[in-house]
């Protein structure tokens, strides 16, 4: 479980996060949504330790990040898996080498153990014949799946995904969403996803945090988001006619 308490973060004179307090639960897909500039990415990067909030605390199962020393922070980071928006695969390494990287770096597993684990996670994300290909030789959807495989290969406790379906076609987006949800439940991971994609909200949003201008404007489940009368959420989530109709249909049931 990740607990965020009164987190504030500024850049130069502008305050981006204004006292965010929330909890991201274990075994659930937690979504952060909001308009561009609402502070989603800053919150995600603060959770990852890339940005350091001036006020407030972030704790990982009771371990307050800002109170940890450098070694403890690095140790904690080995428990984190991250899927970046652009996948962030290492260009010079093959798919298998990318996935094996955290194992080679942080474990003392033998070559055959690493190979077995890499084969297992690549099979888990439905990538069987891509071991020796370079990231530039595979499609965007496959790159995302490699990034997910790399993120989960070392059995992380926490999985973060920044816009996991940006730039993907609708079918691949659904596959990626479902894959993340399945992995979260299967391995009991605390998953936090930063997304703009309303399909993801409707499909996998077990806990949704809505940010507006750096403030927590609403939080709830995907069922609750259909019933909410919070104006900011309604204006953002149901801005398209399609989603308005989906909501109407849901409320009629």
């Amino acid at each position, binding site marked *: 479980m990740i607990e965020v308490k009164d987190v504030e973060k500024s850049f130069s004179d502008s305050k981006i996060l204004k006292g965010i307090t929330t909890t991201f639960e274990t075994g659930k897909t937690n979504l952060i949504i909001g308009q561009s500039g609402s502070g989603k990415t800053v919150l995600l990067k603060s959770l990852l330790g890339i940005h350091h909030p001036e006020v407030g605390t972030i704790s990982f199962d009771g371990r307050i990040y800002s109170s940890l020393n*450098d070694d403890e922070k690095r140790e*904690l*980071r080995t428990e984190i898996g*991250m899927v970046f928006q652009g996948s962030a*695969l*290492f260009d010079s390494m093959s798919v298998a080498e990318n996935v094996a990287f955290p194992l080679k770096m942080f474990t003392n597993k033998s070559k055959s153990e690493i190979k077995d684990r890499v084969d297992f996670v690549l099979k888990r994300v439905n990538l069987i014949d891509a071991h020796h290909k370079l990231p530039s030789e595979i499609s965007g959807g496959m790159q995302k799946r490699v990034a997910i495989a790399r993120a989960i290969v070392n059995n992380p406790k926490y999985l973060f995904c920044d816009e996991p379906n940006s730039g993907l076609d609708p079918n691949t987006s659904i596959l990626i969403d479902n894959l993340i949800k399945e992995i979260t439940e299967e391995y009991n991971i605390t998953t936090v996803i930063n997304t703009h994609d309303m399909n993801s909200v409707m499909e996998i949003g077990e806990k949704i945090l809505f940010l507006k201008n750096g403030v927590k404007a609403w939080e709830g489940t995907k069922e609750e988001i259909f019933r909410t009368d919070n104006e900011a959420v309604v204006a953002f989530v149901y801005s398209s006619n399609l989603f308005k109709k989906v909501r109407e249909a849901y409320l009629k049931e």
Partner: protein
Amino acid sequence: MLIRYLSQVGKYFLMLKEIFNKQTKWSMMRNLIFKEIDDLIIGSLGIVAFISFFVGGVVSIQTALNLTNPLIPKYLIGFATRQSVILEFAPTFISIIMAGKMGSFITSSIGTMRVTEQIDALEVMGVNSLNYLVFPKIIALLLYPFVIGISMFLGIFGGWLAGVYGGFTSSADFITGAQMEFIPFHITYAFIKTFIFAMLLATIPSFHGYYMKGGALEVGKASTVSFVWTSVTIILFNYILTQLLLGS
């Protein structure tokens, strides 16, 4: 403006400190070092050999053409070629060329990793990205003096070939000149310079790549800025080291 430059210099020294913190696992680091030796050292040998050979030849011809007074002995062609190549051409001129070749490669490769979030990925995993990316380059460039040694040899050899086969001097005169008043400390001085330049070549382009912000266009700009600053720093250190080691 001055504060900005001083702040950058401070940031550079903090980066140097961070490079040696939290070492990457040796089994990974060993492969990275071999890869950097291949990219930076082996990959530079061809261009260094080509430039050294022909510039050595040109130095020899230019010296010969300027020795118009018949009282000046021809062996000075060998002497001038040796002195020019060992003292300045090989350590300094080649290092400035390498600031363009190696430096832009280092800045653009690290800069591209920054733009594509690969450095963030390393940091999030708990890897000391500065150690992972820059330390192997520093170790690989410990072999840079060998490149400069080859450059010295080929520069003098090119001078001999151009002098003798161009009809400017005899082989015996050139070799006499090349051995005349040889001061072994000049070799030490050249290699001290080379070692310092190697460290600058590894770290300044890395600094510009690592801390760059923006997209693909900024990677190109960072490479240019990196070349300018590496060259300026090499020239400044060349002056300071020459004054310190030979000036007194």
